[in-house]
């Protein structure tokens, strides 16, 4: 079965979604990620969705859920590299993902995580 890899980079977890998400994959990611956060006690999660070209309301809500869960587990979530079409779709679906931090690319996202870590 396909699986989305979760990489550990020091204090952060890096999730790169390279395939089009379907519902079961998203559920599996949610399980895996929460497990990994508690295992590694990571303080930041970076989700790169630059290869994701299609979203539906389910995936949109999943992203928002994952961010919420990570926050409960004391890990800041940054979603990076959202494509314009995906952003427009999410807005049209009424999912403005409040509470999720965003950045243009992985670089900017890392910087954002680091600065928010330093702030604590």
């Amino acid at each position, binding site marked *: 079965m396909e699986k989305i890899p979760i990489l550990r980079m020091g204090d952060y977890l890096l999730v790169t979604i390279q395939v089009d998400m379907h519902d079961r994959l998203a559920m599996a990611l949610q399980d895996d990620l929460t497990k990994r956060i508690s295992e590694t006690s990571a303080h930041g999660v970076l989700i790169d969705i630059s290869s994701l070209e299609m979203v539906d309301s389910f995936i949109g809500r999943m992203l928002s859920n994952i961010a919420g869960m990570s926050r409960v587990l004391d890990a800041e979530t940054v*979603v990076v*590299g959202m494509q314009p079409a995906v952003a427009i779709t999410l*807005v049209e679906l009424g999912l403005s993902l409040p509470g999720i931090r965003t950045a*243009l690319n992985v670089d900017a996202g890392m910087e954002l995580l680091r600065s928010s870590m330093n702030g604590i």
Partner: protein
Amino acid sequence: MAVVSKNDAANVAEILRSHQNSILEEWLKAMTGATRRSDLMKESELRSQASRFLKLISDATEAAGYDTHAPAWSATKEMLNEISSSRAQQGFTPSETATFVFSLKRPLFDRVRAAYAGDPQALTAALWSTTELVDGLGLYTFEMFIKTREEVIRRQQEDMLELSTPVVKLWDGVLALPLIGTLDSARTQVVMESLLQSIVDTNSKIAIIDITGVPTVDTITAQHLLKTVTAARLMGAECIISGVRPQIAQTIVHLGINLLDVTTKATLADAFLLSLKKMGITFSREKRDDQKTDQK
């Protein structure tokens, strides 16, 4: 009936051919009297068009009768097409263009009447079919005219859409989108897409949407703006709305639109300064000694 019409057609073709010159003269006179526009078109040009047209219809009637769908009529139709599209572009009114064909009726009918002088029954039939022919051609001209006009309108609309959404780069990482004109759904879609695409292409963290040129802001416009801002935020860029005029600020508050989550500035300059500040860029005025000495 078909046979009769064929005979009529042959007769009319004969009439057209033998009286070509006199019909042309009378036709030109009728056009001059009705709606000729000497400011838009030269006499000689009109004359050559008219004589070519007469030649074409007499050939076509001879070959295919009154059946205007027949291939023999295609040359005539092509010419009408050409005439009406060139007139639509030259600025003739629709009735002036249609009169080109309709004013042919009188000279043509006079000849037909002369030819069938002894037989009222046949005359009526011939007149009827001739009327149908000329009307058909006139309507065709009209249709082509409208088609050309619509083509022009469609092209202008497209031009306007393209022209009205330039995304300009103000600084490395700062984009500006000066909006001009009313924002409807179709335009907002284009605006939104081009802004978001430019954000990705230029890797910009801040986008300034300047609405100085937007005459009115209603709930729909505000919603479109908010959507754009939200979409940009989802991609990791920040939006600043600038150029809010006093009138628009009043409208926004009266309409109860929530723009609290969006940074707004009165002018593009303020917004630009803010974005530079956010990027940690500072300016200072250089002290220039040579200027001071100049002033002394």
